[in-house]
């Protein structure tokens, strides 16, 4: 199938935006953590899981979603959040622990909630899949035609929640799509040390549903597989598992020494960067010219810069605010 020009451009600039957000975070995260790295120090403390290299998974499917569709994301959520249209300023402020953040600083980077675009994430592996099932069940009950997408890593496909959720989704014929980002590792554990099958789309058969496989971190193939999956979902043809082969450029979290990786591994991955490849594709096909792309890049990066600016300048919550928001009425 041929992909509309606007969609290709949207995917491109959204990948650029996401990548730039992460690259900025790489630096910001280190502020206050040098010369000695201390995970609890600096302006953005705590664990930080970045998605550099994994953008195709996010944009390829979010290109098909609206604000009425639901996305549930795991501990590595930024690329999904950006592709789903989460408020960038509030999201960044949340990571800074500021009062202006999505959760007024209570959540942090693994707990981003933006109900306006129906986005949520969680730090517990595989825990978001059942939430997507519940959102899809709601869509079916309300006949809204919305779909629910759960993003997970390949490591999460070995958790019980994966099995229970997909059985339910198929049983109830729900508009659920589980996108598995195979970045080869669960922290330090390689896929083949954790997963009994080579590809998780093979597991679709255990639920009588369709499995899709996207190789080589290709955003256009991800777009096409997602198009099929989203159409099946909206047409009442049930859930899909999509596994995409993707690349994790950085450590599991910032500060990870990555002793478990061969040197040269990452540089080889980076040589095959999906953003560069899509840019070449756009230019070679003459979809737009380089100038246009440069201008769009400047624009989306300016939005990221503004978001970080906003986060920096925002106030911290008052300590006593910690006691609020437990219950709606206490």
């Amino acid at each position, binding site marked *: 199938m041929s992909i509309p020009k606007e969609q290709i451009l949207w995917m491109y600039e959204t990948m650029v935006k996401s990548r730039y957000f992460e690259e900025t975070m790489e630096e910001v995260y280190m502020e206050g953590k040098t010369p000695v790295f201390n995970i609890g120090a600096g302006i953005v403390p705590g664990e930080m899981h970045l998605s550099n290299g994994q953008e195709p998974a996010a944009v390829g499917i979010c290109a098909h979603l609206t604000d009425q569709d639901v996305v549930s994301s795991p501990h590595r959520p930024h690329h999904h959040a950006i592709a789903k249209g989460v408020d960038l300023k509030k999201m960044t402020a949340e990571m800074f622990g500021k009062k202006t953040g999505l959760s007024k600083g209570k959540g942090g980077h693994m707990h981003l909630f933006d109900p306006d675009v129906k986005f949520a994430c969680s730090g517990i592996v595989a825990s978001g899949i*059942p939430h997507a099932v519940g959102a899809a*069940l709601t869509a079916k009950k309300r006949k809204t035609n919305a779909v629910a997408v759960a993003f997970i890593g390949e490591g999460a496909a070995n958790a019980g929640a994966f099995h229970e*959720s997909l059985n339910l989704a198929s049983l109830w014929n729900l508009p659920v799509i589980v996108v598995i980002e195979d970045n080869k590792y669960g922290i330090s554990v390689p896929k083949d040390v954790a997963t009994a099958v080579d590809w998780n789309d093979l597991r679709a058969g255990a639920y009588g549903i369709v499995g899709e496989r996207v190789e080589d971190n290709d955003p256009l193939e991800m777009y096409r597989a997602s198009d099929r999956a989203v159409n099946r979902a909206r047409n009442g043809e049930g859930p899909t598992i999509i596994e995409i082969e993707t690349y994790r450029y950085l450590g599991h979290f910032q500060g990870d020494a990555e002793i478990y990786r061969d040197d040269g591994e990452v540089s080889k991955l980076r040589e095959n960067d999906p953003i560069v490849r899509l840019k070449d594709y756009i230019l070679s096909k003459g979809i737009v010219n380089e100038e246009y792309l440069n201008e769009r890049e400047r624009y989306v990066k300016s939005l990221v810069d503004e978001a970080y600016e906003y986060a920096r300048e925002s106030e911290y919550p008052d300590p006593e605010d910690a006691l609020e928001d*437990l219950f709606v009425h206490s």
Partner: protein
Amino acid sequence: METANKQRLLTGNKAMAEAIAKEMEKNEEVFVMGEDVGAYGGIFGSTEGLLEKFGPDRIMDTPISETGFIGAAIGAAQEGMRPIVELMFVDFFGVCMDQIYNHMAKIPYMSGGNVKLPMVLMTAVGGEYNDAAQHSQTLYATFAHLPGMKVVAPTTPYDLKGMMTSAIQEDDPVVFMFHKTLQGLGWMDQLDASVGHVPEESYTVPLGKAKVAREGSDVTIVSIQMMTVYALEAAEKLAEEGIHAEVIDLRSLVPLDKETILNSVEKTHRLLVVDEDYLSYGMTAEISAVVAEEALYELDSPIKRLAIPDVPIPYSRPLEQFVVPSAEKIYQEVKQMLTDE
């Protein structure tokens, strides 16, 4: 009120099911999920007759996938639905506790109040029918210790209906524990306390308020569900000997109604806490600590605790009877407290 107009008597399970039915009639977005909640009507009758009324789209039988369907309830609540989800026995919490305590209980807080989860998790608790170590627990404190969920455990049919109605209308996640023996089921022990007056019309009983089930001046007995039933029985026997025990039916573990407890202790100056949960790090400890912190000088004698003595529930009848508090043990304990002085 509860004592007035005795005509309409219901068992605990019918009272619960009636509350659910009335809320489902009022609100399209209330629905039920769980194992055997459909044709079976809930193993302990919590959904009796609901499938006939509302059909399989709103009374949904599920696979044995507690993480999957409780998580799905959370996802639905996140979208504004008002699911009621049943964990058949509280003993099974271990296969789905992540969804319960890391998500249901925390999402509202972690979202800074941007996401509400108006849902009810109902679950059966309690033993004394020889169902052994994996089917006889109450685990009150296991839930009450973890912040973000309201945890209630009503005793009477009246409270079961009124508190279930409140729980469904509540915008916060509520863990609703119902005691098997207090459901008044035909195939279990027949207990007067499991049948009681329940008005037909819908009404609410507030969550988070304890009830003085019997007034007295000599000793305060704090208890919950079956232990309240036993405490009242013991109080009756003590009264014949001129000892007047005040019995407090806790009803809610979270929020905890400290005021009612402290007021009673200020009156009686003696405290016995009785629990069907494990002794250590449990409800008896929390109540004791609250009093030792806020009413220490009111106490005329050491606080006493009766609960499961930190062993799993054994199967054999004499063994189980030995570990679960009884009216007789409560009676003896109170006598002991008064003679020790």
